[in-house]
């Protein structure tokens, strides 16, 4: 997994390599310092030699400056490498997501994908930066300080080494236990946040049912579980400090005793002893650092895994080898189509679909929720691939087309549609990048969107907020239709796209379709019977199969379901007004 992630460093590799090199140089300089200090004390201070003091003092300053210079370089390289790495990861993930088919997108939740691209990348960036700065530095400091200890005095160093090994194993043992508990802590934490989220967005329900107390208790329970787990983890961590102190203190006492003996025996100098103390501190510091890196890497493991999942996902739909780049006409043929959202089995949502739609006709599709209407039209622009049988547009199997060609000619207005932050014109031009203002206006006229746009203070330049938050549901739907019309499609699919538009406007839109795009095949999914009644052909879907096809009159005769829908809706089955903005899914 790490290899997979690291392969994305790319051109920032040189910085990633330079960082530890300069960090190593910095460590080298730093290790020298106590050694020089020792000489300064022994040859300068003890001997009362001012010349030696200046000499060693100067040397020490030079070393300090060099060390600083290396440190600055290492720091800069590290920043460069880690932020570059994060850039590449985000870039790779974003590009990958763009290749996802609908099936891939369904597999990840939207929120999940966003977290992976933001929080997870950030975690990896931090862990990476820490690793390249410290992973070399900490062990190097440890080893070099240890080496200097041995140079100074072998016997004392052996004691020290023993103590260090014990301390390290104790710390690692603690950390392993702790990280396991922390995984639980994070899970509890997510649960708690989900609870808050539900309360914030569902506050009306909470208040309407007077459930404040109940929610408080629920929250308190969740918060207490989080508390219990956190305390369990931190209790272990709280041992680390005292254990560390114990080891330091024991070492000070032992070294003082043996050091005194050696000095008196003439095997050691007082300078040696002072530098010994400082090496010990350095060693322990880098040991702590190593443990911290260990913990951080363990914690970033989950993030890394989530990122790799995104990168490893295989797009379910790809262009064929020799794609067809011309869509002849808007005829649509379904032959023996089976379809299931789950690969290799699962209950089919569409069964045994045979359907032939001539180019230029208007087709209404009607049926209950979950009857397969949306699934049926999704297959036409190859948003999903069939599980069995074939779907043809213009006489060619959709799997043989260049996907972009197909989707430009088969224009879908999705049920769950969104607008993007930008002006109305910007949004319309998603349909056709170089569309002139006149073309945009014409499309809006056809979608009955011109009136309300012209009433807006900035007209076509009106700024749309993210997700289209500042237009009503009906206005949003009409803009989405206009956007789809700009593609000049051979097939236009409206998936319940006028549900928030009042019935009169809905009728106007259908009328303008008849007049302005007579050659385009129009598929209209609707819940309102009035939206489909005048179609050339009406398809009644029921439970994944086509239960009836024909004109309104024919179906009134032949289809029980159709008649039932008609009867529940006529004598007042239409929609009245537009629901409040922002209220639809």
């Amino acid at each position, binding site marked *: 997994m790490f290899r997979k992630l690291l392969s994305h460093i790319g051109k920032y590799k040189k910085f990633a390599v330079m960082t530890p090199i300069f960090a190593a140089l910095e460590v080298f300089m730093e290790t020298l310092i106590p050694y020089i200090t020792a000489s300064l004390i022994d040859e300068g201070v003890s001997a009362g030699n001012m010349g030696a003091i200046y000499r060693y003092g100067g040397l020490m300053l030079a070393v300090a400056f060099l060390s600083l210079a290396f440190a600055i370089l290492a720091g800069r390289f590290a920043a460069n490498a880690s932020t570059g790495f994060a850039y590449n990861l985000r870039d790779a993930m974003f590009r990958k997501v763009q290749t996802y088919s609908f099936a891939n997108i369904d597999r990840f939740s939207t929120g999940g994908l966003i977290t992976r691209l933001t929080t997870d990348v950030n975690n990896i960036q931090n862990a990476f930066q820490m690793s390249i700065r410290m992973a070399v530095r900490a062990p190097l400091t440890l080893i070099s300080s240890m080496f200097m200890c041995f140079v100074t005095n072998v016997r004392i160093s052996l004691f020290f080494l023993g103590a260090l090994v014990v301390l390290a194993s104790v710390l690692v043992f603690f950390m392993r236990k702790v990280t396991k508990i922390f995984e639980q802590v994070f899970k509890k934490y997510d649960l708690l946040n989900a609870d808050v989220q539900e309360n914030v967005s569902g506050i009306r329900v909470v208040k309407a049912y007077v459930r404040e107390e109940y929610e408080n208790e629920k929250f308190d329970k969740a918060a207490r579980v989080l508390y219990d787990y956190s305390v369990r983890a931190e209790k272990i961590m709280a041992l680390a400090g005292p254990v560390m102190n114990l080891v330091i203190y024991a070492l000070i006492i032992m070294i003082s005793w043996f050091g005194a003996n050696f000095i008196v025996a003439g095997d050691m100098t007082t300078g040696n002893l002072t530098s010994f103390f400082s090496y010990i501190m350095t060693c322990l510091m880098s040991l702590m650092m190593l443990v911290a890196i260990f913990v951080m890497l363990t914690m970033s493991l989950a993030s890394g895994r989530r990122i790799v999942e995104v990168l490893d996902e295989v797009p379910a739909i790809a262009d064929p080898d020799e794609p067809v780049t011309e869509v002849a006409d808007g005829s649509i043929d379904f032959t023996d189509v089976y379809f299931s959202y789950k690969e290799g089995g699962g209950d089919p949502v569409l069964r045994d679909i045979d359907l032939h739609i001539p180019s230029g006709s208007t087709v209404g599709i009607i049926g209950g929720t979950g009857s397969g209407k949306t699934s049926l039209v999704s297959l036409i622009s190859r948003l999903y691939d069939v599980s069995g049988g074939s779907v043809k547009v213009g006489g060619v199997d959709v799997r043989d087309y260049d996907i972009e060609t197909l989707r430009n000619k088969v224009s879908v207005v999705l049920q769950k549609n969104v607008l993007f932050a930008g002006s109305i014109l910007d949004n319309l031009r998603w349909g056709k990048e170089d569309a002139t203002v006149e073309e945009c206006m014409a499309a809006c006229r056809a979608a009955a969107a011109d009136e309300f746009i012209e009433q807006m203070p900035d007209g076509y330049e009106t700024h749309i907020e993210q997700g289209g938050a500042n237009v009503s549901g009906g206005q949003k739907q009409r803009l989405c239709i206009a*956007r789809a019309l700009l593609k000049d499609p051979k097939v236009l699919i409206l998936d319940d796209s006028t549900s928030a538009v009042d019935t009169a406007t809905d009728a106007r839109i259908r009328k303008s379709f008849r007049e302005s795009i007579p050659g385009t095949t129009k598929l209209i999914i609707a819940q309102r019977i009035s939206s489909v009644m005048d179609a050339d052909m009406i398809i009644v879907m029921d439970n994944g199969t086509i239960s009836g096809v024909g004109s309104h009159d024919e179906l009134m005769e032949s289809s029980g379901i159709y008649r039932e829908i008609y009867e529940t809706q006529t004598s007042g089955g239409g929609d009245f007004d537009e629901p409040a903005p922002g209220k639809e899914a």
Partner: protein
Amino acid sequence: MPGPGNRMKIDEKVEHPFRILGRVLGFVMRRYAVAFIVVIIAILATSYISLQGTLFQQTLIDDYILPLVGTPDPDFAPLAGALLTLAMIFGAGVVTSFIYNRLMVNIGNGTLLDIRNRVFSHMETLPIRYFDTHQHGSIMSVYTNDVDTLRQLISSSVPEFISTIFTVTITFISMVRMSLMLTLVSVLMIVVSFVVTGIVGKRSAQYFGAQQRNIAAVNGYIEEMIQGQKVVKVFCHEEKNIEGFVEKNEELRSAAKSAHGIANILMPINGNLGHISYVLIAVVGCAMALSGESAGMTLGTIVAFLGLNRSFSRPIHQLSGQINSIVLAMAGANRVFKIMDEPSEVDEGDVTLVRVKEENGELVETGERTGLWAWKRPNWESGETELIKLQGDVTFHEVDFEYRENHPILHDIELFAPPGQKIAFVGSTGAGKTTITNLINRFYDIADGKIRYDGININHIKKADLRRSLGIVLQETNLFTGTVMDNIRYGRLDATDEECIAAAKLCNADGFIRRLPDGYQTMLTGDGANLSQGQRQLLSITRAAVADPPVLILDEATSSIDTRTEALVQKGMYSLMKGRTTFVIAHRLSTVRDADCIMVLEKGRIIERGSHDDLIAKKGKYYSLYTGNFAEG
């Protein structure tokens, strides 16, 4: 939770940092006063003892080692004795450090628990207006980011601050006592490092500000595009999308590079300034010792001073490295307190809802579940209470309302809903339909006029009791994590399983629930993400049915259900609405046409009212809306 709330606001100004700190400590002291004082003592002791370790180096060399050097028969006994004493002191140090670390775990987490609970329970008391006027993302981030920064503050920054001040003070005194001259050198170097840190820190803050802004931009873009990913696919907009992303991503990279680049050098600068300070003190100290002018300047003194110098400057440097996180914590604490300081919903009502039974034609309060309810109204003058039977009679008299001052939404609303009647509201977006229902349950309070419920001014009814008597089904369903059964029972917590299932049957939800993998025990997560919109709607209707209220408000309750299913639901709804006063907002004619009275709203006024047949005969707005349906039929 990802979202706009996740972005830290680094350039936010905190007005009264000390007051905020004081409040945080107040929370700590409220529950852990004794423990916290013990912790402070333990911290002081630990710092003191660890200082002894440094100071001992001087005594060790001067008093125990140097006198022995050259003696033919050195006596190590005094040294052994000194070390033994030291060992005991150290032993105490280990104990104190354990005490403070261990206690701090409970104090830190306990205070956090306390703060979390307080923020949450206070949030639950806030008026709907607060939620309507604040971004949910930023409310969330109080829980996900800000409370956590407090943890950092309580369990790490505060103790460190205390120990730093103590260590620095004690060290400073020892340093002054050893040598004033050397102390001056040491302080001078600290000043230099402050100046350098200040300069670097200022630039770093700028860069970090830029980084935060760029993170916000990139995250916003990712959010928007991933949420619209299916539209992107349908419009083959992938290439354009990548172009836009690359640009923003590159800006972020370059800003982050500068920010981290400068943050990374802060530590080495301070560290190496420490080395320079070391050399300066060695040089000055030795020069002084050699010149013999200052008495008492021994080799041991210099060595010890060098050690002290380190204990003096290291914590200062570490603390200055923490400044950034302290500033962040302060900003976080500020936001936590801001939500705690929001005024709660006011409730001055004194009329309560009680269970009653009928005895000899009189209402008598009872604890039994009789299915009968009454309003209990205290009479201030006589001191007696009066019971008024709960019937569900709602009237509006000359009601005006505005969400913002001088932006009136409703004008002069007159409304009579006798018990058991069905009142429907129709009209276009923004006409004020939902607003009217928001007034009945007092999510918002009216500006002028009167709303009476069974003849009682609703301002006099306790909000909780008022709301308990109203069932509400909204278009946005909002289910909670838990089983299907839990969600139904949300309507009435003491409902039995049988009652819940009966309600589900009534609302035609039973069928689909039984087909779910675990039936009524199926776990719902993420607002019922595993259900279709229609199924969620059915559950929320069932939830209202279990509550069994005399008045029902259905705000676009069936708009996401297709007409065939709606016909099924409708049956359940009819049995539900029977005998209850019902307010219905809908844009489907089938839902409203059988209402006893239909109100046509336009721009905050009721412009037409009457039954379906009346309104059709009137040939007004309703008629035109109605016939518009069939203009193209």
